[in-house]
């Protein structure tokens, strides 16, 4: 499976370090309303470079950091790490030579996001470059958010064109 695992910590309702290992091409995430399923989707879009808080159902980017429950205090940092299997070399750029690529994003309450590629600090642009041309990106057709499926065909013609050009 291209995406091997998702590590969440301090991100939205996933306050405790959590590892989700993906072992098949057909993985279902299930659970009652409000338990945190769509937060996992937000985590994936955030780590691959989503820069708009509004697109993450947040009012400011700091809102993605766990901000407490009736029994727990807020924490100071959110961190998400995705690990990809790159043995087929599909993910581009100079990292193509690695069999495994990990992408990580960390945000503290006071500041900027930090991005890491295989443990080494990098820029947001480096993360976007890796996925360039693969059809994957924070707002691409490969991630369909809750309630948005029909918007694709209701989109304005010029917006649908942008969608298609991403495929090229």
């Amino acid at each position: 499976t291209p995406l091997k695992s998702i590590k969440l910590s301090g991100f939205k309702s996933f306050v405790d370090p959590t590892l989700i290992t993906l072992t098949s091409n057909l993985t279902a995430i299930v659970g009652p309303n409000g338990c945190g399923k769509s937060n996992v989707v937000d985590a994936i879009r955030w780590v691959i470079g989503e820069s708009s808080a509004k697109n993450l159902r947040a009012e400011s980017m700091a809102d993605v950091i766990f901000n407490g429950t009736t029994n727990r205090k807020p924490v100071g940092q959110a961190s998400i790490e995705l690990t990809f299997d790159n043995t087929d070399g599909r993910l581009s750029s100079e990292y193509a030579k690695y069999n495994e690529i990990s992408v990580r994003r960390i945000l503290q309450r006071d500041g900027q996001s930090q991005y890491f590629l295989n443990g080494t600090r990098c820029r947001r642009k480096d993360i976007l470059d890796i996925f360039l041309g693969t059809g994957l990106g924070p707002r691409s057709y490969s991630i369909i958010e809750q309630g948005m499926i029909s918007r694709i065909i209701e989109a304005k013609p010029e917006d649908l064109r942008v969608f298609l050009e991403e495929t090229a």
Partner: protein
Amino acid sequence: TRAKFKETFDQVNQTFEAYFPKIFGGGQACLELTGDELLDAGISVKAQPPGKRNTSIHVLSGGEKALTAIALVFSLFQLNPAPFCILDEVDAPLDDANVGRYCNLVKAMSEKVQFLFISHNKIAIEMAKQLCGVTMHEPGVSRMVAVDIDEAIAMAES
């Protein structure tokens, strides 16, 4: 460039025209360019469920719109299969027969593409090969739980 765009447009359109009758059990659909100048023309969708005369997407029902959009997304995937595909309750507007058709399409594509999907529908949950349960035993705190198929269905129902 013009040629590149036209080639991509034709390929996606061809796949979309083929997928639509599969997922609807008939009917037809296509993409149309909204202008003559290839460099800045927009794209609009025409869809005609089986037996109907309308082609405008505005008159489609909630379920028909979702199904048409799914056919389009999968056509984009056929052309350029991204490493994975994430679907968050795209089956919510569908009746069970259409959930079945959607599942058949996902299963067929899962040979080339990794799917991560969220659903409350039993039929969709049953197609999964891996189940990840999420709970909030501690209110407000999400935790992953191993679940089997019966627990997963019970979870979707509670």
